[in-house]
């Protein structure tokens, strides 16, 4: 193909791709603009700290979900897992740190084992993680039958840092996004992991172990689930078994909003974090400012998802 022909052929494709990548940022900007217009005082250090308070755990859970979505799987247990981690954090990690650490590490090990099981027995991750959600929920209730416990001081201290100029949640989100971005999108093995989601056979033929990719991705999900749970307790200072239950759906929504796709290995860590922040902002602050009755605030998540996906479908049809 001649240079010019190739470039012009690529042009409509590139606009489409550009639009798709920008969609998460666009959505968030729109929401921020909405907030700024409705309540200018919210656009401040204090305002952002308040609105994005719980954004960090959600962002971490979203990134966790993103890892398994990259390899065409799904984790329906991330929510109850975060709750389990929270309960462990508020009890053992506080009272007997060594035990707490061991339990959390073992939990990550369980996730890794699930990855292996799913690969070796060719199991549908939806059903396996569904079953595991019962398991984590049950364990959480066993650890903390009633809300309580208390977070370790170093954790609350860390989560409560008052950073100058830019609120801590924003810094944390940027750090998370950048770290995961570089690890998954820039490293050699990150390309292999993503490739396993795009064309499993090709990666296998190139000599890479597909078992290892599954195990590693699930282990990463477990790891970020642990960090998410710990962060959550650092903010709320005490735990209860149901504290993370909404995170499953939120995390899936965040990944999709961030430009990720269920199959094909196309994900964006930065997009996922932005998606999580967007949901956190749209969840309560924006709607409160819009005076949307609390009854309808839950619907916001659904409406946002549908709108973004509809926009994506439209862009796709134009030539993305």
């Amino acid at each position, binding site marked *: *193909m*001649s*240079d*010019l*022909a*190739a*470039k012009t*052929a*690529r042009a409509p*494709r*590139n606009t489409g*791709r550009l639009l798709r990548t920008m969609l998460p940022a666009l959505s968030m900007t729109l929401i921020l603009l909405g907030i700024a217009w409705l309540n200018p005082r919210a656009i401040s250090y204090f305002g952002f700290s308040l609105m994005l308070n719980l954004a960090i755990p959600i962002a971490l859970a979203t990134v966790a979900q993103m890892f398994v979505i990259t390899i065409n799987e799904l984790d329906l247990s991330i929510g109850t897992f975060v709750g389990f981690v929270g309960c462990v954090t508020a009890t053992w990690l506080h009272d007997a740190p060594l035990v707490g650490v061991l339990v959390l590490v073992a939990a990550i090990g369980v996730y890794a084992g699930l990855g292996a099981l799913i690969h070796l027995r060719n199991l549908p991750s939806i059903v396996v993680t569904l079953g595991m959600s019962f398991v984590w929920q049950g364990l959480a209730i066993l650890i903390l039958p009633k809300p309580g416990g208390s977070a370790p001081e170093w954790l609350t201290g860390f989560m409560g840092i008052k950073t100058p100029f830019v609120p801590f949640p924003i810094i944390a989100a940027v750090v998370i996004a950048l770290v995961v971005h570089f690890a998954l999108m*820039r490293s*050699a*093995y990150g*390309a*292999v992991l*993503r*490739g396993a*989601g*795009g*064309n499993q*056979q*090709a*990666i296998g*033929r*190139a*000599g*890479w172990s597909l078992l290892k990719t599954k195990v590693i991705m699930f282990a990463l999900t477990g790891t970020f689930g642990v960090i998410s749970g710990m962060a959550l307790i650092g903010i709320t200072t005490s735990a209860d078994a149901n504290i993370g239950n909404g995170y499953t759906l939120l995390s899936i929504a965040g990944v999709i909003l961030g430009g990720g796709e269920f199959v*094909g*290995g*196309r994900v964006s860590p930065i997009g996922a974090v932005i998606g999580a922040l967007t949901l956190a902002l749209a969840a309560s602050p924006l709607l409160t400012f819009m005076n949307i009755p609390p009854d309808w605030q839950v619907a916001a998540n659904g409406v946002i998802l549908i709108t973004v996906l509809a926009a994506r479908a439209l862009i796709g049809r134009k030539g993305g």
Partner: protein
Amino acid sequence: MADPAHSVAKLDGVKKSFGAVHALDGVDFSVRSGECIGLVGHNGAGKSTLMSILAGTGSPDEGLIAINGAPQAAWTIQRARALGLRCVFQELSLCPNLSVAENTRVSHAALNGWGGARRAADLIRTSLDEIFPGHGISPQDIVGDLAIGQRQMVEVARAFTVTDDPLHLVILDEPTSSLDAQTARQLLAHVRRAVAKGISCILISHILGEIIETSDRVVVMRDGMVVADAAAKGLTRETLVAAMGGAHLRDKTVRSDHKDAQPLVVAVPGTIGLQARRGEIIGLAGLAGHGQTRMLMQVFDAAGRQGGVVQVSSAVALVAGDRQTDGIFPLWSIAKNISVRSLGALRRGVFISAEAEAAMAVDWREKIGIRTDDLNNNILSLSGGNQQKALFARALGSDAQIILMDDPMRGVDVGTKLDVYDLIRAEAQRGRTFLWYTTETEELDNCDRVYVFRNGQIVAALDHSELTEERILQSSFAEGAA
């Protein structure tokens, strides 16, 4: 040039069967260093099977593989790669969600470390620049966003990149099929340059002109065997076509004249249009994958719709060729697989009549000769040929007047074929119309008219009386329709 002493790869007495079909019937094949071999043959000759064995993706039932003179016991893709064999097959082995550079990186373990991303990008850019000057592809482009021709270019360029593993032999399976003329020329020029540097190439192509120009030696296969192996200099398209032929068309049987009625199917995919009337058996011929299946699908979709490029005025039913993906319901019994197209007709009131369903299965077991003692056995208990018969029964047992057949006899034994041909002819006598895509020339003898496809267009319409294998082959390999 070619070093007569150094044999890069040697296959001896390779045999491979898939069920009743002998894909390779004792093939000797050798490649020397610094030579380009052109591999040609009609459908089902065995080229792809042979190459899959050489590449390590398939294993032979019998025969020896020797690389650089050393016999190989356990032959895998990884081993092949380590010993310097690369392949560019038609099913692309790129990850569509990764960039061009990343796809290069994952195929070379040496690019894993620090700075590997840049080296991978440089590597693939250099290769693309060398093979396809003016390509316009950036290493950062995501493969899924590239056109198929560009993806092909990336695949080829990647195959020629070298880090740790050596590069001795590249197998190119129809590499120019999705490239335009200029890019194809660039590729073939590069093949000559690589050969001059001592790398061997195996070039599979149906574009005979390319083969003769680019190869040092041409190997012709037919029916699972090598039938010719000669220097390319001195060969012409005609001699190659002649070497590929060999099927015997039976004596012309008298066909009844159906020129009475309105055509049931009208399609105009190019300059030559397709028409089918009541009771006609229409053949779709030409090299595999040149638009025949697409035509059938267009007819399938057009049934029951008005207007459009394709017009169909009767119900259609399809007999699938790729049983696994298009035809078989693997959890069901033979009877259920047969009845599925006729569920409406088998209804008595609200429910499907079990008796009618069973009767249909028994009826067709008789008619088409399915070998089984219990029609309620799972469909996979049948042999391949009998499974195909069940698929025929499904279509023929329906109310459709037009039957589309998507190369349904591929890999089926001779006995089954003969049974089915008789049945098709009988049904045609009774007024059914058949659109029959087949990759086996002999089967075309059953047809009233044959349309030869090339590159998605019909390039020839041959009446039964004009049907000879040469004419079909010539049209199949005709150039100028690119």
